[in-house]
């Protein structure tokens, strides 16, 4: 047996941080980070390969590469790691976005070392979250990922950064507080017949938590994760937070961290409390349905590029939760695909916005115009990102959205189908705001003569954007493999959800 392929995912970030702490000058810091995250990306692909190999060898366990170590005996807390297809997909996403994020923040000059260390701690937290199979460790990594965010926005942000950082952190902490209540509720009900209480996800899934307890703790858990997943009306940290955050942080936050919300909602809230999920789904379907349309409408009126994108994230992430709540295999596959697709897309958007801001020093779309002429590379990539966002076939957005819509529509209940039609209408509104931005920002005559001197993308910016565009296109062109990868564990999980 070779080494467990999950461990490098935790060690590499750690070693990278040590490496960054040891080197002196800025350029070495950058290179150490880039090499570290590049290695992480390679390990993520190795994990994918080993996962396929194991599956093809006939291993049908729901979780692979499981390792468990007793950590704190009194409360039966384990360090338990393991992955299924969904986690592997999320890990790939995280690795790609982090890699791109490092290159997107190549030009951070102020406290570079600390910046990269915080960034990698954040990424490490996310990796840990996705491979954890123990509620407590999961929560631990969740907090590990959320807290550097405060520093990253508060120190390296722009605009009203203290306010935004505070707002974001407080809201997410509020979410964590709810989550903690829900988690402890699950823990203390994890052995209804007496016996050892446990935080172990797979163990809890096997027992039947009493219905009353489920009904009580489901809203806590779901909203707790939902805050991170921009559940309406707990989304307002997103516009302010993103607007103030530095580029790479926006990328990681919208691209990866918001996915923790959706993943947690599914893995913890719905999977462990299935009956309550069934009874209460309609409330959250209404909320997410509102969020999808509301976010899109909200985006139309915004002037600031980052606000537009933040609202669009509200809309797209709303779709993730919406599809999860439909609780069938297709819709859930779509939700996970949408997480990945939105993660890549929005990371690309934020990277581009950062690069454009770095050149024009404004994010107001009506102050810019005609950028296609002067910075064609970035503009073309922006158009591609926009098209992906509005669901152009051949890019990832289409695959995800269509899977969601078709899946949700398969629901036999009329209410769910009507909700699906409402959610569908967001694709038109999305087209409106995307094209508005593209039209005003990139096309048309050049509005400012200074722009004639702007330089197009530098090499590191190209690496960052090309990585993301390629990923988007690969998923968009050949969705079958990733769809199967995600779909494979779902059959069993959905079976668990349906009473």
């Amino acid at each position, binding site marked *: 047996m070779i080494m467990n392929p999950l461990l490098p995912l935790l060690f590499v970030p750690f070693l990278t941080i040590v490496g960054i702490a040891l080197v002196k000058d800025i350029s070495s810091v950058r290179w150490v980070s880039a090499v570290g995250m590049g290695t992480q990306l390679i390990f993520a692909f190795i994990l994918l390969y080993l996962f396929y190999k194991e599956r093809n060898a006939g291993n049908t366990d729901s979780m692979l590469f499981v390792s468990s170590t007793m950590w704190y005996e009194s409360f039966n807390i384990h360090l338990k790691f393991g992955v299924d297809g969904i986690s592997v997909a999320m890990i790939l996403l995280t690795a790609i976005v982090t890699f791109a994020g490092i290159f997107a923040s190549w030009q951070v000059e102020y406290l570079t070392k600390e910046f990269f260390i915080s960034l990698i701690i954040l990424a490490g937290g996310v990796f840990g979250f996705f491979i954890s199979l123990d509620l407590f460790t999961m929560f631990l990594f969740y907090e590990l990922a959320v807290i550097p965010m405060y520093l990253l926005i508060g120190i390296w942000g722009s605009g009203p950064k203290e306010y935004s950082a505070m707002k974001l952190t407080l809201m997410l902490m509020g979410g964590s507080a709810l989550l903690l209540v829900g988690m402890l509720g699950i823990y203390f009900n994890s052995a209804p017949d007496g016996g050892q209480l446990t935080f172990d996800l797979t163990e809890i899934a096997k027992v039947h938590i009493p219905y009353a307890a489920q009904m009580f703790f489901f809203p806590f858990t779901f909203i707790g994760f939902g805050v991170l997943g921009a559940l309406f*009306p707990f989304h307002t940290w997103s516009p302010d937070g993103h607007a103030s955050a530095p580029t790479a942080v926006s990328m990681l936050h919208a691209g990866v961290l918001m996915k923790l919300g959706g993943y947690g909602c599914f893995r913890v809230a719905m999977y462990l409390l299935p009956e309550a999920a069934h009874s209460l789904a309609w409330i959250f379907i209404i909320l997410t349905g509102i969020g999808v349309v509301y976010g899109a409408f*909200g985006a*139309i009126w915004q002037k600031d590029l980052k606000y537009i994108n933040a609202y669009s994230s509200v809309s797209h992430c709303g779709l993730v939760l919406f599809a999860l709540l439909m609780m069938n295999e297709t819709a859930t596959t779509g939700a996970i695909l949408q997480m990945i697709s939105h993660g890549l897309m929005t990371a690309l958007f934020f990277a581009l916005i950062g690069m454009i801001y770095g050149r024009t020093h404004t994010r107001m779309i009506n102050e810019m115009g005609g950028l296609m002429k002067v910075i064609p590379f970035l503009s073309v990539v922006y158009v591609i990102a926009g098209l992906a966002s509005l669901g*152009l076939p051949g890019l990832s957005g289409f695959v995800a959205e269509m899977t969601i819509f078709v899946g949700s529509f398969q629901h036999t209940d009329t209410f769910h189908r009507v909700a*699906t039609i409402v959610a*569908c209408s967001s*694709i038109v509104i999305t*087209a409106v705001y995307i094209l508005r931005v593209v039209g005003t920002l990139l096309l048309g005559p*050049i509005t400012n003569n200074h722009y004639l001197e702007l330089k197009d993308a530098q090499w590191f910016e190209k690496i960052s954007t090309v990585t993301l565009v390629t990923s988007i296109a690969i998923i968009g062109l050949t969705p079958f493999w990733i769809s199967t990868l995600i779909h494979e564990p779902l059959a069993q999980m959905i079976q668990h959800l349906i009473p």
Partner: protein
Amino acid sequence: MDYSYTILILLTPVILFLLIGLLGDKIDKMHAGLLGTTGLFAITMLSYSTAFSYFSHGTVESFQSIEAFQIVWLQFTDNLIIHLGILLDPLSVMMLVVITTVSLMVHIYSLGYMKGEPGFSRYFAFLSLFTFSMLGLVVATNIFQMYLFWELVGVSSYLLIGFYYERPSAVAAAKKAFIVTRFADLGFLIGILLLSFYTNTFDFNTLTDVNGPAIAQPITNVFMGLSATTWAMLLIFMGGAGKSAMFPLHIWLPDAMEGPTPVSALIHAATMVVAGVYLVARLFPIYSFSSPDSLEVIAYVGSFTSLFAAVVACTQLDIKRVLAFSTLSQIGYMMVALGVSGYGGEAGLGYMASLFHLFTHAFFKALLFLGAGSVIHAVHSNLMTDMGGLKKYMPITHITFLIACLTIAGIPPLSGFFSKDEILVAAFEHNKIIFGVQWMVAGITAFYMFRLYFNIFWNNSPAYHHTPHESPATMTVPLVILAMLSISSGFVPFHEFVTSDGLPLTTEFHWMIAIPSVLVAMVGIGVAAVLYRNKNSRPESLALGMKSLYTLAYHKFYIDEVYLFITHKIIFGLISRPVAWFDRHIVDGILNLIGNTTVFFSGSIKKMQSGEVQWYIWYFTSGVLLLTLMILYFN
């Protein structure tokens, strides 16, 4: 017969797109254009050979549909699978021929027309992308593949309309085109969802199978008096209406003329805009058997659009807009034909006629646009007031344009006569009112086309900056070829190939219908000649005479303004803006309120920590007293 080589028809343009798109800056512009054109020539030849072998090797009785190629692209559920494949049946093979032919002509023409443009290679990349999408659309084996390429076609159209991206009007037009069609596509998508929910399949062969789930299984769900199938089919037609610019979703098409003229010829005249017709034809059995109500709707929508557009076309001054409205009107004809048709046998005449008209229209409308492009190339203006007397400067353009005008007016023995005649026959047999409208529209069509013709080529010449000259051979050769096709395509025995049930159809010639329709066309031409052949004041006085109608028509019946009102005032002003405000002030406000309340209370409590020892003593004593009180008297 093995048709798997047809995959090359799809692969070649996408490879060309990537090649030209990614290497566009590296290679010489002209080489990029030539590369694209050569590639397209190869595709055209492949399509011809496919068509030849398909039609010659098909069984005598009927043409079977063949799935030449099929891979799984994405699997939703066990039955709902998006395949990427190639479906060959008479309809799609016919479309292959039309698309590749027109596209090839446009490619050749563009080599001359777009010469010297800064985005020359980008233009050819987009053209390849469009060709790929359109071909993928017509050979789709299932409705979702069609939707997929449908969207791609929309994006290529967006990119090409906005080709001159530094011109704000072009950007606005591109945006408008995309959003309007996108809105229609929403209907299409919901229609697909509904249809697939009840039939549990995407596959065209299963859907249109007379014994299949969509037709044989009665669907009892009724919503607002219409069955679920009817709703689904109406919504799908909405998608088709958006792409085919049927009233009231037509507003994007006239604006789309901001794109380069060859693009208008290819996308907005010959191929993409007939996608709606193609869609309805593709799903025709379902329309015919399961929801005849929606066919009625299609017929009336088509009829109204054709009349409406024809009236508007009479007043427009921009020659490309005249042609755009003429396109609307002609597509209206095709829709009418589908709407009045039945399935199989004699009843299926309308179906055949519709596609026949699609076939001939593609050639003559492309010819008209390319001719107009040639004129615009020469005088550098789109307005017919800047033109006149060009027949002596541009003989080839003149002759080919005249042929095209005669064809669209329906003068025998040109192709337009045959196809339009079949449509009128079908309409006559089904619904006399629609027949009457279409007959009248035939006259108006002749009138506005010859208004255009006389205004461009006859009339008095304005003062040109420099003498207009005939276009180069790259532009005139396609014109000549298309003119020949316009003349000859009417003689194709179309009724033997493309019919609703795959069986050959015998058609008769109806003198009772042909003669009035030709007569009305002659009248239209005559009126146009009287009014516009030479400079005179009659048009102005006529316009003054019908001032209100003229103004209405000139402003396209103010439909654009209505849309503008709805989008800007209602959607932006009454929904989006309040939503943004609501989010900033209410949702966020509540949050800030919670924060501020906390701060306020903490501020109040903070004062207790004043550092004044006397207060501490006081708190301490009061606390002790309070505790005593509680313990002794309140427990």
